[in-house]
């Protein structure tokens, strides 16, 4: 048994809080009386509608097709009637075009299938098209179209495929359950991915708090394939692509670069399982596993929830405390607080965490930076958040970007987490980054 001792520099150890759901098997969620599907489910161009109001659709049918290369189609998660096409709210607060779909009362699990992608006969290009057609995007939360990520740029090659089973966000146990319950899909997915990228070997990276998943995958490792399972120490943000590459390969991805610059491609484990499950049947994504947890939830668990299920319906089904006061989509470190319960589950929703009044810090007193250095020793990229924060106050955005590598920051939140002065550093950096980007374009 080989255990990777390496990890990345710095990082933090927030309480994991995974015990309450990591032992609960994935359970199927019921269909909501109304499914609401925004067309913008992923990074890139929103899907383009191919159905009209009043039309009856079948589960698995394409409702909207990909609009260009950086886009994927959207499939019907349930058979039903397209009630209307109208603006729907999203988590960012923006309204986008969406489909209101009313499931048929006796909707079956019967699914429309498209063109199957056979692992043995398909070419790498065909696999990439198959992945795009299946509507697959990064399920870890980024929602970046997976086929675009797998496309190796000219002049580069991929040696190592890394399957990301780290799940370093506190509270979330989605990937953990997928690894325990869907190992066959994962291994088949890896086969597709290795063929598509030309990778010679695969490493499945798992954090030490999921040893049972690592043991299970090792036991079932297919023979004659260059796949290994590596367990890495628990540390946030170990699941960030760059941090995982450093831990497993001992290399650093160049600043502003991509994993392929060190001949690696990283794919989330749930995304991998989805590929293995959907491609052989030519199906599209209709549902995903989501951890619903947090002190405000009564029936915590890992649920298979149809895409488009309204958040309000989800919370009603699992039961939430009266005093619920904050709901996050994603984990508590990088997730987004929900302002409107009328939004719905999208492909990138990896978790729903509900906090009660007691967990919400009553807007702590913000002090000036006391230069304690805690943030400097927490930043996984060795940036200087203290200096960046001070520069942000002075609106020296150019200096932040040019001298202090602002644009490398991936908003992991480690710096804010440790800051005793409670400075909203990540918030500053998010704003500064968008200002720098706008100025560049202008």
């Amino acid at each position: 048994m080989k255990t990777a001792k390496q990890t990345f520099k710095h990082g933090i150890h927030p309480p994991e809080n995974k015990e309450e759901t990591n032992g609960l098997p994935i359970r199927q969620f019921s269909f909501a009386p109304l499914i609401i599907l925004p067309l913008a489910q992923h990074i890139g161009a929103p899907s383009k509608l191919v159905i009209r109001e009043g039309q009856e659709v079948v589960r698995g049918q394409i409702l909207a097709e990909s609009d260009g290369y950086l886009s994927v189609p959207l499939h019907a998660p349930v058979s039903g009637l397209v009630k209307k096409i109208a603006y729907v709210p999203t988590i960012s607060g923006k309204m986008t075009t969406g489909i209101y779909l009313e499931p048929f009362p006796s909707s079956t699990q019967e699914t429309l299938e498209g063109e199957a992608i056979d692992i043995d006969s398909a070419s790498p290009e065909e696999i990439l098209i198959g992945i795009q057609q299946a509507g697959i995007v990064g399920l870890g939360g980024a929602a970046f179209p997976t086929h675009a990520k797998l496309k190796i740029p000219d002049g580069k090659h991929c040696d190592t495929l890394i399957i990301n089973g780290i799940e370093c966000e506190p509270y979330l146990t989605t990937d953990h359950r997928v690894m325990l319950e869907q190992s066959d899909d994962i291994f088949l997915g890896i086969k597709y991915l290795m063929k598509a990228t030309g990778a010679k070997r695969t490493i499945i990276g798992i954090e030490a708090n999921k040893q049972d998943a690592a043991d299970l995958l090792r036991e079932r490792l297919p023979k004659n394939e260059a796949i290994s399972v590596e367990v890495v120490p628990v540390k946030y943000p170990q699941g960030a692509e760059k941090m995982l590459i450093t831990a497993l390969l001992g290399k650093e991805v160049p600043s502003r670069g991509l994993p392929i610059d060190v001949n690696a491609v990283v794919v989330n484990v749930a995304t991998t399982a989805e590929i293995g499950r959907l491609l052989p049947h030519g199906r599209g994504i209709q549902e995903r596993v989501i951890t619903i947890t947090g002190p405000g939830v009564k029936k915590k668990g890992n649920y298979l929830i149809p895409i488009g299920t309204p958040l309000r319906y989800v919370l009603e089904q699992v039961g939430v405390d009266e005093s619920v006061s904050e709901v996050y989509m994603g984990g508590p470190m990088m997730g987004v607080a929900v302002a409107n319960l009328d939004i719905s589950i999208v492909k990138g929703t990896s978790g729903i965490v509900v906090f009660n009044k007691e967990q919400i810090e009553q807007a702590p007193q913000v002090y000036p930076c006391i230069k304690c250095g805690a943030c400097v020793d927490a930043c996984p990229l060795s940036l200087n958040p203290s200096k960046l924060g001070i520069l942000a106050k002075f609106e020296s955005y150019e200096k932040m970007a040019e001298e202090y590598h602002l644009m490398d920051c991936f908003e992991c939140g480690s710096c804010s987490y440790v800051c005793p002065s409670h400075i909203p550093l990540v918030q500053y950096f998010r704003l500064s980054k968008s200002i720098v980007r706008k100025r560049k374009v202008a």
Partner: protein
Amino acid sequence: MKKQTLHISTSPHLAQGTSVEVIMRNVVIALMPAALFSIYAFGWNAALVLITAVVSCLLTEHILCRLANKRSTVSDWSAIITGLLLGLTLPPIFPLWMTFLGGVFAIGMGKFLFGGLGYNVFNPALVGRAVLQGAFPVAITTWYASFSAERFTTLHSAVLAVPFMEPVIDGTSGATPLSAFKFDGITSEASDLALGLVSGSTGETSSVFILLGGLYLVWRNFMNWRIPVAILATVFVFSGILYWIDPIEYPSPLFMLFSGGLMLGAVFMATDMVASPITSWGVIIYGIIIGALVVIIRLWGGLPEGVMYAILLGNAISPHIDRLVRYRVYGTSLKTS
């Protein structure tokens, strides 16, 4: 589900739970052993000096905040630290009105002039002490023997001196070990120094209790241990080499370590987070510079004690250290394969 208000905040939605108040409160706790010992050793005189310094710092902070139309920041504990540190660097029989003035300068000049907590370039307590040193060179070098029999029965006349009158200096003042060495070539036993059985300022004499407080802070992760370690190691090695070359001319490294304000300075003053560098390598360089300056000023400078100036100089260069010594940012200065 009923309609309810949702709380909205930006990520991350978790926090470690430390705060500026917690850090500062713990520094105050860590200073307690040294402060209590100094009262035990020097009696009511020392107690009054310490209390006056703290009260003066708190009052100054409060009044200046009010004058600037800002929320009063006395509750963050940092002014108490400044007051305690200032009091601990003063002679136990220092006139109270001068002590009070020192607090006003420490907070007003050392802290507010720069913009308040977080913006001070120098350790405020040392700024206060430096002003006093310049203004009252005699009073600040008038020492008092520790463990005098009447320390809890009578107050020294100098302590209650009327402002702007020359304090009466009588025969009870004793030479500090450092000045005794400097001007008369006498060294004291290191063990006496470590336990505080010598004369000196209220707090600088008991190294053991100062170290105890420092260890507590390091254990709670509220202090960068690299700073005191770098300073003390530098002083020890530097003076050790000199002692090895010429043991007659130079004092022993142990004497250097345990005498004067070195312990208090290395553990509690140089570690002021705001005025010290931010990276691990930065603070080590900072510590080495301060340590070297301490030895140079003590042995070759015109003053018996150099810790205060060494730290003030260290504070002054620490922004420059931060500019020069940075962590290598992930993924930079690497060739792309």
